[in-house]
């Protein structure tokens, strides 16, 4: 759930989502859910002419499982805080009885 919370802090920031089929879509992150499905607004496709089917689209819903990378705005990420939270989550998961 850590990354769900993390992505929620990035709502309204501009991100670029790279899909497993190599399309990169830049847009404003509008919402994210527990599966890391993503909604983007005011989208712009990098290399638009290669993917013409998105040329009249303004916002998209992307299934979480097809996302390869999300390029984040560096300024919006508190790396130290994220590292800390990741460690804490890992520690809490390690101590959990299975």
């Amino acid at each position, binding site marked *: 759930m850590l990354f769900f919370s993390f992505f929620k802090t990035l709502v309204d920031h501009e991100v670029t989502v790279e*899909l497993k089929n190599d399309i990169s879509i830049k847009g404003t992150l509008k919402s994210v859910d527990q599966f890391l499905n993503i909604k983007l607004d005011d989208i712009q496709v990098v290399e638009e002419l290669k993917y013409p089917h998105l040329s009249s689209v303004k916002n998209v*819903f992307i*299934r979480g499982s097809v996302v390869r990378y999300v390029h984040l705005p560096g300024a919006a990420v508190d790396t130290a805080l994220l590292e800390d939270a990741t460690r804490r989550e890992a520690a809490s998961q390690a101590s959990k009885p299975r």
Partner: protein
Amino acid sequence: MENLSLQDLPPAGGPNHVQPPPGGPPQLPPQELAWLTEASTVRTSTEKLVLVLRDGRKLIGVLRSWDQFANLVLQDTIERTFVQDVYSDIVRGIYLVRGENVLLLGEIDLDKDDYIPEQFRKVSAEEAHAMKVKEAKEKQHTDKAKAKKLHSLGFEVEHTGEILF
């Protein structure tokens, strides 16, 4: 949360909806709307969408209904194929799409409705299909060669055996 009124849904409801008894409330109780997580659904039921399926097909139609799995009903659907510098449309009608096949959903901006970049020329469905098949064959060939080369260098190729466009 956005406006989640289901008032304007068609009477048939979604694929998993039970039609309320006659005279019953036209709107679902709030607990049945709990699955409408913010990112997993689209707001209203009359939007024109482009839907990219897992097998790479692109469907353009009017969204009429959906549920929490992104199972969708599309009306007046056309299938648009782009190959190199041409495209073709095939009229398909009504679609019920199982959610797992949905890769991407895009709402079409009605200001730029049906805008296709100028360099794309419309051809017949058969012509586009033939080109697509040819292109797919070539791609398969080059992918195989690439995978072989990468494998010899100790790399494993991503999503092998999975169809992804």
